[in-house]
């Protein structure tokens, strides 16, 4: 009505609307002031412990001297990055990072899916629950204890694995001292520790499969294998796709703590990864080069960010589930 009375009236009404919206915004801010106060505490924490280090990332483009501080140190452009790309360690740490990570992804990924399907198909509730409890138990073991167990079991003198090998007539193997075993030990112990836990996600996806589908399939005479293959598996495919892309987005993040703890002088050829190298060039070094170490860390973070962006795009396409 009013809209049709010409430009002037329209402008007036829009102005009125806007001021009404402003008033309502003011009102909403006013009634929620307490929420802002509550949120301020975690927000300040976030600014200090997450955003200030992001600002501090400029150290990667400077030549850091502790006396001058981050912002007082001279700019050096990409020197630190070039130094890393040209160093003989670059190829080695990148190769180790990617090969451990890809091996872990390719070999480790199917296990939780399979375990979840097996558990879902188990018709004995108590047995099912027992297996589930057993398989997720190792998740609670700390990385330090886990590596402690690995070293203990694989020890050449007192380890249970070498007891077995010698009992069968073989000779003792120093597993932790041989680079060629490093990746295998890392990945297979990850599978042992994480499968039961990750299976929980797939198991709950399986529990939300429409029972009507199974009833219909039963009427059509489908057997249990067919129902698993043609109903259960396709139903959890979106979950599998999301988990897979999430893992791919994290390909540059190898379990830093575990690798660091498993490392020794004999196996660094296979175990030196980007994050352990950052640590060794930085805080652990006798003469730390913080700028150089930060540049390597930033290189890793940027690749990660790009990967996660790509993965989120893919996920958004798969089933409208995006990370943010």
């Amino acid at each position, binding site marked *: 009505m009013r809209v049709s009375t010409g430009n002037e009236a329209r402008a007036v009404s829009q102005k009125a609307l806007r001021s009404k919206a402003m008033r309502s915004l003011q009102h*909403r801010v006013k*009634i*929620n002031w307490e*929420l802002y106060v*509550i*949120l301020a505490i*975690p*927000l300040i924490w*976030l600014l200090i*412990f*997450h955003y*200030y*280090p992001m600002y*501090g*990332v400029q*150290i990667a483009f400077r030549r850091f001297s502790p006396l001058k501080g*981050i912002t007082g140190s001279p700019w050096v452009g990409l020197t630190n990055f070039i130094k890393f790309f040209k160093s003989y360690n670059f190829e080695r740490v990148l190769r180790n990072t990617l090969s451990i990570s890809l091996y872990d992804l390719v070999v480790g990924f199917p296990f939780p899916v399979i*375990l979840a399907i*097996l558990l879902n*198909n*188990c*018709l*004995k509730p108590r*047995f099912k629950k027992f297996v589930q409890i*057993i*398989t997720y*138990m*190792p998740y*609670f*073991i*700390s990385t*330090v*204890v886990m590596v*402690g*167990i690995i*070293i203990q*079991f694989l020890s050449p003198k*007192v380890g*249970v694995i070498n007891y077995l090998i010698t009992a069968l007539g073989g000779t003792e193997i120093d597993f932790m001292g041989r680079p060629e075993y490093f990746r295998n030990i890392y990945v297979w112990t990850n599978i042992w520790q994480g*499968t039961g836990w990750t299976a929980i*996600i797939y198991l*709950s996806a399986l529990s939300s499969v429409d029972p009507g589908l199974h009833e219909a399939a039963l*009427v059509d*005479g489908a057997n*249990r*294998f067919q129902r*698993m293959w043609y109903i259960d598996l396709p139903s959890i495919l979106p979950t599998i796709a999301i988990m897979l892309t999430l893992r791919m987005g994290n390909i540059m993040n190898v379990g830093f*703590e575990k690798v*660091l703890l498993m490392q020794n002088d004999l196996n660094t050829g296979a175990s030196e990864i980007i994050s352990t190298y950052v*640590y060794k060039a930085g*805080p652990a070094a006798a003469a730390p080069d*913080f700028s150089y*170490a*930060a540049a390597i*860390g*930033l290189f890793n*973070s940027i690749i990660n*960010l790009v990967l*996660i962006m790509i993965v989120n795009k893919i996920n958004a396409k798969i089933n409208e589930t995006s990370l*943010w």
Partner: protein
Amino acid sequence: MSDIQTVKKNRARKPKALLEDKLFGFVNDGLLVLAALIVFYPLVYILSSAFSSPTAVSKGLVVFFPVDFSLKGFEEVFSHKAIVTGFANTIFYTVVGTLVNIILTVAAAYPLSRKNLPGRRILLFIFTFAMLFNGGLIPSYLLTAKLGLINHRAVMIIPVALNIFNVIICRTFFETTIPEELIEAAQLDGLSHTRFIVQIAMPLSKAIIAVLVLYYGLGHWNSYFQAFLYITDKSKFPLQIVLRDILILNQVNEIIADPLLYQAKQGMAQLLKYSLIVVASVPFMLAYPFVAKYFVKGVMIGAIKG
């Protein structure tokens, strides 16, 4: 196909289908038994070793059950000052740290879950972006040094006071479980936001709080790198650092000071390791079944993106 035909066909196929299904069930459960054994055996081996005598352990006699049942390993564990101190420190870091975590997580998650909060989207972005990109180890290390937190107990609590992923989970939970009408009614009654959170929202969110306590608590209990990087004072070491010295760096001989014979000392060292693994890992393994029912529920609601 008519219903009668379907039923007839079903009946005709039934015996065969039953056999297939039996076979399927057999293979399925067989694989589960295998999986359980593979995971279970190392755990049993450690547990049985921990309850055996030092000689049985050093001679490798333990196969499945404890040999010469004894509690010597546990006596040894608790007779070492470094271990007991580590335990006490870890309990302190875990309890205080988790408490701080929960308060901050709820303080961030609740306002972010309010749909009519002006600026919510920007605030949410500030949180999520920090999850995707970080400055890395070096800028954080320099910040911690600058704040004077190195070798301070607070370094085990303050820099890890919040996990953004948990904030997102908790926010989604609040969004989906606390009805708008309840908030409006509370506001009409003149209840402040803080009191609403403490007296109404949190009691309604036991499931997510249980999940957060487990996540954060386990994180603190198992945390090693934070202490490794920043704490040098032995009296402040958490358990995991002590464990690393014993289990990984094998510094047991310094710890076992008794003038034992070499062989006995070796046996004792092995036994101590097994007992220590048990003592350090059992608390959360035992606690989990009690929160398991909340857990699946909480994780699922949290995992669905809001």
